[in-house]
């Protein structure tokens, strides 16, 4: 099966600063790629480059099956206006806005799709709630429903579980597994290594000017995590305690 996106010899940075160079990786349908790295290692820059918001210093991004019309995207909430006066269902509908008639309301098919997306995210009963009444976890579910509405073959999630409780995280992970079973590729920036180890097929570790790509078990080894500045050797020893040969759990 051809990859959704193929990254060739990619180098990212700003001006004279190189964040990492020579990254080669293929992201195949049904795979979940975790992007892991210390602050400032280039995780969000990598996501923005895939979205076309930033140009690479070197290398190229290829789309073997054609560049998707939509790339599902969930950004960090830093610039999101939680007081904006719309309902939960309006936020979800934004995911399909490009097909809307500017002079008409949503048709029945789209309204049904919105309901299905909200149901999948577990918030159909909140569909008519104003956005400002939602908690952090419920807002994240609403944003997931917008990604569902995008119906994209490639989905980018930037720290999707940073402000949600365990129950919500489990639900959103189940949504992600549904995407995986539907043959969509997911790339997500994460800090929680336990989620990476339990739910991701591949990992991209960034740090100290390097980018390492491979299966989760090959990449998330104590030696690599320390060498690429993600954690100290004592943290790695504690996290991988009880293991020999430098492998993951």
């Amino acid at each position, binding site marked *: 099966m051809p990859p959704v996106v193929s990254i060739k010899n990619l180098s990212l940075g700003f001006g004279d600063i190189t964040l990492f160079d020579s990254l080669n990786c293929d992201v195949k349908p049904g795979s979940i790629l975790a992007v892991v790295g210390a602050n400032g290692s280039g995780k969000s820059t990598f996501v923005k480059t895939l979205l076309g*918001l930033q140009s690479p210093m070197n290398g190229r991004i290829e789309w073997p099956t054609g560049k998707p019309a939509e790339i599902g995207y969930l950004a960090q909430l830093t*610039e*999101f206006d939680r007081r*904006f*006066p719309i309902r939960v269902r*309006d936020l979800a509908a*934004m995911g399909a*806005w490009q097909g809307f008639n*500017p002079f008409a309301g949503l048709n029945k098919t789209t309204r049904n799709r919105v309901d299905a997306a909200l149901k999948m995210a577990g918030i159909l009963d909140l569909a008519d709630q*104003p956005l400002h009444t939602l908690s952090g976890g419920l807002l994240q579910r609403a944003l997931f429903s917008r990604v569902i509405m995008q119906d994209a073959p490639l989905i980018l999630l930037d720290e999707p579980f940073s402000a949600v409780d365990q129950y919500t995280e489990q639900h959103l992970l189940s949504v992600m597994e549904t995407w995986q079973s539907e043959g969509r590729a997911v790339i997500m920036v994460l800090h929680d290594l336990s989620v990476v180890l339990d739910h991701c097929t591949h990992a991209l570790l960034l740090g100290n000017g390097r980018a390492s790509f491979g299966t989760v078990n090959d990449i998330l080894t104590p030696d690599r995590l320390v060498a690429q500045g993600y954690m100290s050797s004592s943290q790695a020893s504690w996290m991988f305690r009880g293991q020999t040969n430098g492998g993951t759990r």
Partner: protein
Amino acid sequence: MFDLLSEMFNYAFMRRAFVVTAILSASVAPVGAFLVLRRLSLAGEAMAHAITPGVVIGFVTAGLSVMSLLFGGLIAGLGVAVMTAYLARNTILRSDASLASLYLIALAIGIFILSAAGSAVPLKSFLFGSILGVDDASMILVGGVATVSLVTFALILRPLIMSTCDPVFFESQVKRPWIVDQGFMFLLVLNLLAAFKTLGTLMAVGLMILPATAARYWSGTITAQLALGFIFSLISCWLGLTLSYVLPETPSGPAIILVAGAIFVLSALFGPLGLRGQFSATKKP
């Protein structure tokens, strides 16, 4: 009361004023709503000052005509808007600081030319408008601006909502997100110019901001805010005009904005999202 209304509507200039302010209210309501939602309330005031040099140069070179006002104001306003966006994207200054710097320069140029032109410029009309002397050309200007403005808003409403609510997501979905930003600034300048002749440079933004901020206290949906903004704007204009008619020494611009101000205060006090509502200080997200 009936006698007063009957007497007031005997005058053609009052009938014109009521019609033109109704059209103006429909046109400025969506601009005001999005100025508030995009946290650009003060930027609207700055843009009102930024169009000053264009309007003054238009006046000095071609007299107080609608076309000189429109083109002079558009060039100055859009020039400042484009320069602001350019500086914000390419230098360390954020857009608020860039706009503040540029509008102050524009305002100084405008006042400099205004002073150099001397007593030929009707300063009071310039500052507070002349709603009671609205001519055919002004009515056509307001009608034309309202038509362009409302059609453009219908076309860009959804992208505008998206870019206001979640700008990062919006930028990821379109190739040229700046078109929506600059399109909105164009509508702002256009509506300022429409309101400029009738309300003056100092009061023009008031009709955009105050009804929109008052509407924000009453509703949690964008549709209701747009509708309420229009209704509040219309009430402000018509009550303000009546006030100005009853008290002949009162300029119409400030009278209209004072009524809008009273609606804002009442909304802040009694609106469900106001001081007594669910957005009390302890519950803000």
